[in-house]
């Protein structure tokens, strides 16, 4: 699959989620932060985006901690996203 196609698929999976909160956060993240990530972080984000909302939301709102260190870096960046 081409890079553009891969990115489009990721965009769909980030912005057609079960919870509005996650559509907003992941969509914003994809636009503003994702292009600046190191390759390992980008891979970690893809794994996070594949999680279900009720797994990912507790990581983002801090009620659960991430065990994988690279994922934890990305989650910290996700927590900093401000949707206006």
């Amino acid at each position, binding site marked *: 699959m081409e890079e553009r196609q891969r990115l489009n698929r990721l965009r769909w999976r980030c912005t057609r*989620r079960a919870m*509005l909160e996650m559509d907003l*956060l992941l969509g914003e993240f994809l636009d503003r932060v994702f292009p600046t990530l190191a390759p390992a972080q980008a891979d970690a984000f893809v794994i996070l985006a594949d999680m279900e909302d009720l797994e990912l939301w507790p990581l983002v709102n801090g009620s659960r901690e991430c065990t994988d260190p690279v994922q934890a870096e990305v989650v910290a960046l996700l927590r900093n996203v401000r949707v206006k």
Partner: protein
Amino acid sequence: MSKLSIPVRKFDAVIVGAGGSGLRAAIQLSEAGLKTAVLSKVFPTRSHTVAAQGGVSASLGNSEEDHWHWHMYDTVKGSDWLGDQDAIEYMCRKAPEVVVELEHFGMPFDRTDEGKIYQRPFGGHMSNFGEKPVRRACAAADRTGHAMLHALYQRNVRANTQFFVEWMALDLIRDQSGQVLGVIALEMETGEVVAFHAKATVFATGGAGRIFYSSTNAFINTGDGLGMAARAGIALEDMEFWQFHPTGVAGAGVLITEGVRGEGGILRNSTNERFMERYAPNAKDLASRDVVSRAMVTEINEGRGCGPNKDFVLLDITHLDPATIMKRLPGIREISIQFAGIDPIKAPIPVVPTCHYQMGGVPTNYKGQVVGDDGTPVRGFYAAGEVACASVHGANRLGTNSLLDLLVFGKASGDTVIENVRSGEIGLKELPADFADRTMARLNRLNTQTGGANVNETRLELQRTMQKHCGVFRFNDMLIEGVAKILDIEKAVARTEIKDKSHVWNTARVEALELDNLIEVAKATMVSAEARKESRGAHVRDDAPDTPANPNGRDDVNWHKHTLWHRDGNRLGFKPVIMKPLSVETIALKTRSY
């Protein structure tokens, strides 16, 4: 004769939508041995049903005495007498059965000490015909919808339901006689367009809350089922009725739970006034959803809104002890920081009344069959869940009755399909030669459009127009203007342009196709709202106020009827409300007051 041919796959039944209603219908069909396909824009357990936290209602009577007839009364009253009483009786009677069934499918309900399903009170659910609150809501912690979808999905896997994930249904296939023969769908991964030819087609596509600028609904709720039905000549019922939640974060729409006001949160306007004291001197900020929403809109309309555009009010919890906020309102601080950019311990949260739930939809009877204007079933076509209008919610839905609707009518539609297939009433009829032409022409138009309208900008324009002209509190002149504006926007939708013309994972195309559906829902809503000259349930007009002759602005003489919006000619028809229940006496018209 068709110029275009597309691949055809054959099934006994095709279900569009893998939320609670679609999955419940699929269990019936697959377990009965019907070859069943379920199409979904996303992986099933990512459907919007996940967002439901509050619970599902059923008069199990586990915590105190309860009866389906009381539940029925509450639902009729909640609907402001616009709900059909046969369907409401059916749903409330079936509730205990479908909830216990769900338990057997593996749903991890909260339990009482004796091991029964635990039940809690929920707004509008009462005992003994409106006497006092009753515990009727069954929940699995605050993840009821999520747990429900997982239980239903697992059961489907066991029953060999065939899932088509990341497929978007584009149009219904109907023949000359009006019979529905399946759907045409787009596979996102390949861009391939395929016909799903089936004896029965079940719509379970969920709501369309994204027609409003401020919505608690996830982005996926673009009303595809409504758009497809309308394009195929099916009228849409009661589309003027949308439930709004008073406190969505301004801009983002993310829901701030009622619990915030329960813990002492106060609504303030631009002069820092606690304005609810004027509108509801007793209940104040804890008045019912519609009263609070209307007060908020009045403040904004009279120039006392906050912010540079004076278009929101403030929900203030800065006077609460931070420890209380963290303990009693978990998650609210994070939501406010991430979606409003403020820390609610230090500053108030900007909020506006926000679209939450669609009461209207594709008209069905209580068996889940889609019906025409005279109540005759459309052969081969069924619907359940938020896309459908059975009509059990009438002018206003009670909390927890939607998850119940999914279970009851998901199951009922499945059972009716089985009955209709077995009796030979529906079979695999030949596809008309030109069945794909309309869809292929639409796709071709989109691919070749030049100098057209931008999809994102047009959608935004549509959403802003709906919010401004057809929001929680409605004004005659604004509605008239709104109809004209929406028809203008329709012209832009008809000439949307996408730069990317590729096939594989072309999300720009999918979003343009979603907009084709949003516009149909927006037209139906605006036109129906403009026409209904009374206030009833969630539809509240400034020029239909509370008077002794018409309490709450409701006008039963002229408006105790369902609207039916026809895409063709953009016109309205009407049909009577079914007042005769299946076995009990009619619950007679009365003023709705709590």
